[in-house]
């Protein structure tokens, strides 16, 4: 019998203390950029080994080279200056925001595809063939709404340019580096307060990415209920749609499956904003509800980046995801 639901790690995993030390050594000049790159792969391997033992077969490399969903990507984008610290939605977590001061374009030599290739090699060594390494990226709507636009001065153009000038070329390079699945993080899609015109253009940009790139695209929403924005999801029904279950307690999200043609879902069933542990049965019930509603492909994962909880807790939550997948397989 095939999989009923697969366990997935989405976005970032908390930095191990050793990774934090690498950053300190890099900052104080005790470690070179190259040395840092080599050392970080040891922790990527540590994470993959942990994921394999837990039974998680869809995953990212933990984004140990990233400070947040935007950095360092925005440093490799022409027309962008990196600004001061901004709060990441309603979290006590801050990122450096992009200030758009010129025409956007992906710079030559953006190292993200190379990093992907390196992590993929480690994944193959640890897992053999039966696993999928995903590349997380910020989605166009989230990029546009978190940018300070001093150039286009038009949000619809801005969202379009982030998509066509930065994300599409980058994803194409990632595909050449062996990437088969891209996660587009789109908390802004359901956050509220974004103008309807911007959302509509943003969704068109997403559709174009989904249709044109040679990778499977996941669109991950988090922090907010999705049902209010459900009309946008019919257009995105080819993608895997991520739903934050902690923010969608009343199961209103099932309407995406029942009414909008969404069949492929990533249930953000473990809460990366709380240390409280979920129960296996409680997550299993959510998976079954999605299947009953008509979902054709179900993943269970963390609802949002894992940076918001300590590593020890993240590790327990990852194990729980593996247990859920095993339970559903009857194992």
């Amino acid at each position: 019998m095939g999989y009923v639901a697969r366990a997935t790690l989405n976005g970032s995993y908390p930095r191990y203390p050793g990774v934090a030390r690498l950053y300190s050594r890099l900052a104080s000049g005790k470690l070179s950029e190259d040395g840092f790159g080599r050392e970080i792969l040891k922790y990527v391997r540590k994470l993959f080994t942990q994921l394999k033992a837990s039974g998680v077969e869809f995953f990212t490399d933990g984004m140990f080279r990233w400070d947040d969903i935007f950095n360092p990507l925005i440093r490799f984008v022409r027309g962008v200056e990196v600004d001061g610290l901004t709060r990441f939605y309603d979290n006590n977590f801050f990122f450096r925001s992009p200030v758009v001061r010129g025409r956007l374009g992906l710079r030559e030599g953006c190292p993200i595809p190379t990093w992907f290739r390196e992590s993929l090699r480690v994944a193959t060594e640890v897992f053999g063939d039966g696993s999928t390494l995903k590349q997380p990226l910020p989605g166009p709507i989230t990029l546009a709404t978190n940018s300070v636009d001093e150039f286009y001065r038009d949000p619809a153009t801005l969202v379009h340019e982030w998509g066509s000038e930065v994300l599409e070329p980058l994803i194409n390079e990632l595909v050449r580096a062996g990437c088969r699945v891209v996660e587009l993080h789109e908390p802004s899609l359901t956050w509220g307060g974004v103008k309807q015109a911007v959302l509509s253009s943003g969704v068109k940009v997403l559709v174009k990415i989904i249709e044109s790139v040679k990778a499977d695209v996941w669109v991950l929403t988090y922090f907010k209920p999705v049902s209010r924005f459900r009309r946008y999801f019919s257009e995105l029904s080819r993608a895997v749609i991520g739903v934050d279950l902690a923010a969608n307690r009343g199961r209103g999200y099932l309407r995406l499956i029942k009414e909008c043609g969404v069949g492929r879902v990533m249930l953000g069933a473990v809460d990366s904003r709380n240390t409280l542990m979920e129960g296996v049965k409680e997550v299993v019930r959510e998976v079954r509800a999605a299947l009953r509603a008509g979902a054709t492909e179900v993943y269970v994962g963390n609802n949002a980046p894992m940076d918001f909880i300590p590593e020890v807790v993240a590790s327990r939550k990852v194990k729980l995801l593996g247990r859920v997948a095993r339970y559903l397989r009857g194992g």
Partner: protein
Amino acid sequence: MASWAEVELPVLPTTVIGSYPRPKWLRDFINRFRAGRVSWKQLAEAFDDAVVAVVRDQEVAGVDIPSDGEMRRDEMVEYFAEGIGGFKFYGPVRVWGNNYFRKPAVVSRVEYREPIVVKEYLHLRGVARARVVKVTITGPYTIADWSYNEYYSSKEDLAFDLAKVVNSEIKKLEEAGALYVQVDEPALTTHPEEMEWAVEAVNRAVEGVNIKVGLHVCYSNYEVLRPYYDRLNVSQLALEFANRGFRGLRVLRGLNKELGFGVVNVHSRRVETPEEVARAIGKVMRYVRPECLYINPDCGLKLLPRGVAKEKLRVMVEGVKIVRGRLRRRGIEKVVLRRGTTCE
């Protein structure tokens, strides 16, 4: 203890928000303590000595109302969670870049066990020359918002239990003779839909308190705060404005209490000039009467190098002196330490 009527301050009293850079030797000493090479008793003595040093920095700079620089506190939520019962620490959590804090988890009912900062206050009063000193306490909403909730059925229930704890602590400070307490609520406006009860939680924390209480809110959308000016039962709002280039001062229209005006940016190492400070104060006086103004940095100074922090305070005081000169010609020289919740 001095009676209230007697407590007078120069107009535009200068103060700090709370934290101040730890001296290098103290940081080294803390590392040695963590490595088990010095005792807790020795570390406690080092903290006391560090307070003497940083209070002196503030006095030399000319600050009217010093704090103890929060020398003992690694982080503003962590410190109080450690002192209050009901919390557990799992490990560090990243806040930005490679910066972490130990975010606490609430695992049982929060309880007031014993005074947390009263000893700090008594030590500060003993070493400071100033008659009025400031003691800071992290507010109930921010502690609730920056903790994991594993126990309460809602964040609101947690915040109100924390408000009782904070209230007990402020009353202990009052009993010990403190004249001025500042409640820090940097998270207050982050969930606008929670403002109604968040403001009530702050009010619950200051209920029945008869000393001066300020409220510090920073890096926030003050438009969210604005509708609650009236309802907040505190005598002062200490807000950050240098970081935003003194834009959006219009939000102060309708403010019916004292303003603690942030005039130096704590996230930039560039030291402002006295003229810039004086200009900013001139600008804010279009919205707030000088008798209702205190002058302070935007926020705690702890992330700056100590030399820069000290220089920023000196420049802040110099800028204030320029404005005081003008006010003296209008006959405005003194203000009283106000406890009431209005100043119009």
